[in-house]
């Protein structure tokens, strides 16, 4: 069942086209990764989905209802954190949560509110004003607010921005719990491929407001297409040695001191052994996850495909 169906969505800001003829579908139970570089149009699309901005063209259906005519009914079933988790800094976490619960039409007991804060690890600081909170704590409070009315669909726009590694891991685990234990549908946007890779069941990549690719994460993050960045003490020697070896076919390009290779993830240990045997001085060998590299991969010779085959 399609929870979200977006058809030919566009948004113009003057002469600038932020989103251009974008269509995609989010199915029930998906953790839908929404990927794109900064300025790609992710936030604009999510803002249109949350009715913060009006589309110039196109239509959005959520829970099989047109968003334009059923805004209130739809928003009752959505919880969202858009960009930063901004709340009232002069109020406590508890008061913020109570206030936003009431806006969603709920009059929750103190215990219910504290349970919600407990879920995001803020119960002990529940009565402290938010201005004393760290960025990670604010983010967790933002998520508690988004979940307080038990929505079916959760929209998280760049939820790990500004978080430390532990905070990022916490958010990731929370998203997985929301999907697996509580059977929620989650749309999560990010410019970090590595983040989405670990949690998404389906992925949409957009660039300059247009769809680049949409499909299941398993297909999109094909282990046979893994990009690896090799840094050596002498990159010219390493490049020449690899070209004359059985690894010539996986060489992609040389970027200064780095060499980019594309190979199956399972072949990386063998590559490592071969580098040692060829007496190449390896400084580092790491997986590449940046969108820039990924775009190079998915857009090579095939711009703006409609859908990735499942």
């Amino acid at each position, binding site marked *: 069942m399609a929870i979200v169906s977006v058809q030919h969505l566009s948004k113009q800001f003057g002469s600038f086209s932020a989103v251009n003829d974008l269509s995609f579908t989010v199915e029930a139970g998906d953790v839908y990764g929404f990927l794109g570089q900064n300025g790609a149009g992710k936030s604009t699309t999510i803002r249109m989905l*949350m009715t913060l901005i009006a589309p110039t063209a196109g239509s959005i259906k959520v829970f099989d209802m047109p968003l334009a005519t059923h*805004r*209130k009914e739809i928003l009752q079933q959505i919880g969202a954190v*858009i960009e930063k988790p901004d709340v009232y800094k002069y109020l406590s976490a508890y*008061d913020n949560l109570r*206030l936003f619960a009431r806006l969603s039409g709920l009059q929750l007991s103190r215990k219910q509110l504290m349970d919600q804060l407990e879920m995001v690890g803020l119960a002990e600081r529940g009565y402290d004003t938010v201005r004393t909170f760290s960025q990670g704590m604010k983010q967790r409070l933002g998520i508690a607010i988004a979940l307080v009315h038990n929505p079916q669909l959760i929209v998280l726009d760049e939820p790990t921005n500004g978080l430390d590694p532990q905070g990022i891991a916490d958010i990731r685990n929370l998203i997985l719990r929301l999907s697996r234990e509580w059977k929620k549908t989650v749309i999560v946007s990010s410019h970090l491929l590595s983040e989405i890779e670990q949690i998404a069941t389906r992925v949409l990549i957009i660039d300059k407001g247009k769809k680049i690719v949409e499909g299941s994460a398993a297909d999109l993050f094909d282990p046979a297409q893994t990009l690896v960045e090799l840094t050596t003490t002498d990159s010219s020697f390493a490049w020449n040695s690899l070209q004359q070896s059985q690894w010539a076919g996986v060489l992609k390009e040389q970027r200064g001191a780095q060499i980019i290779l594309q190979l199956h993830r399972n072949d990386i240990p063998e590559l490592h052994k071969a580098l040692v045997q060829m007496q190449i001085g390896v400084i580092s060998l790491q997986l590449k996850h940046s969108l820039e590299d990924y775009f190079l991969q998915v857009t090579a010779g095939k711009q703006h495909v409609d859908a990735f085959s499942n």
Partner: protein
Amino acid sequence: MWTLFQIELYKIFRRPRTYIAFAAITALIGVVQLGLKVDGKEYAEFVMADFNSSFAVDGNILNGYFICYVVLQLLLVHVPLLIALIAADMISGEANMGTLRVLMTKPISRWEFILAKFSASAVYTILLLIWVAIQALLLSMLIFGTDDMFIMKSSYAVVIKADDVFWRYAGAFCFAALAMTTVAALGFLLSLFADNSIGPIVATMSVIIVSTILSTMSIPLFNAIKPYLFTSHMITWKEFFDLKVNDMNEAIPGTIQNPQKLWNSAMVLMAHIIVFVGAAGIIFKRKDVLS
């Protein structure tokens, strides 16, 4: 809508900024009362200088009713700024904090949101004026006592019997509440156009200052627009202290000389409120929340 209104009031009165206005009014009125308590006689002699040769005035001229009138004339110039501090921050402040974005993802209609926010700022305005009334009238009555009220107009003086004054103040404060709600509506409308509150506050005060200048300048070019400027009607509360007179030129207790003027001004102010809030609703309904 009711829940939203309660939440807006809750937010207003949980912000420290809200109490600046109440503290400022307490300080301003306190200073005036202290000054008149200490040097009031000299002030009264100065005020009565032109009349002493024509009238023999006895009794307590410097009573609570008179003090309140003096305070109101002084304060009603400054209160719009205090109103603008909150009203012009209602939307822009939310945009600045980023909470407008969060609020608009909740299942509330934009019209409800605008009406609830404006209603809350109107309540703040009324409470501020009630505070002014408590400080300027009730406290002055306690400190200076009560007696007949003596007011100097531009070309004549009015004496109002002590038992005929209180209801006039009740009416004047209600009218002032309407005038200040108009200021709140203007500030509220302007708060839609910025992501910080400084711009709308300055813009609100600028509109009031320019309109007041136009209202007071006696130039034929501006005379045609004066009746339509809300600032021309903001001081109509003084009409409550102008009485009808009989054939003997004696004031008739319980009367107002020109009630039609009060009614007309009230209607003009109401029309401004409806236009400002209506425009705010229409603009906000179509506004992209980008903050």
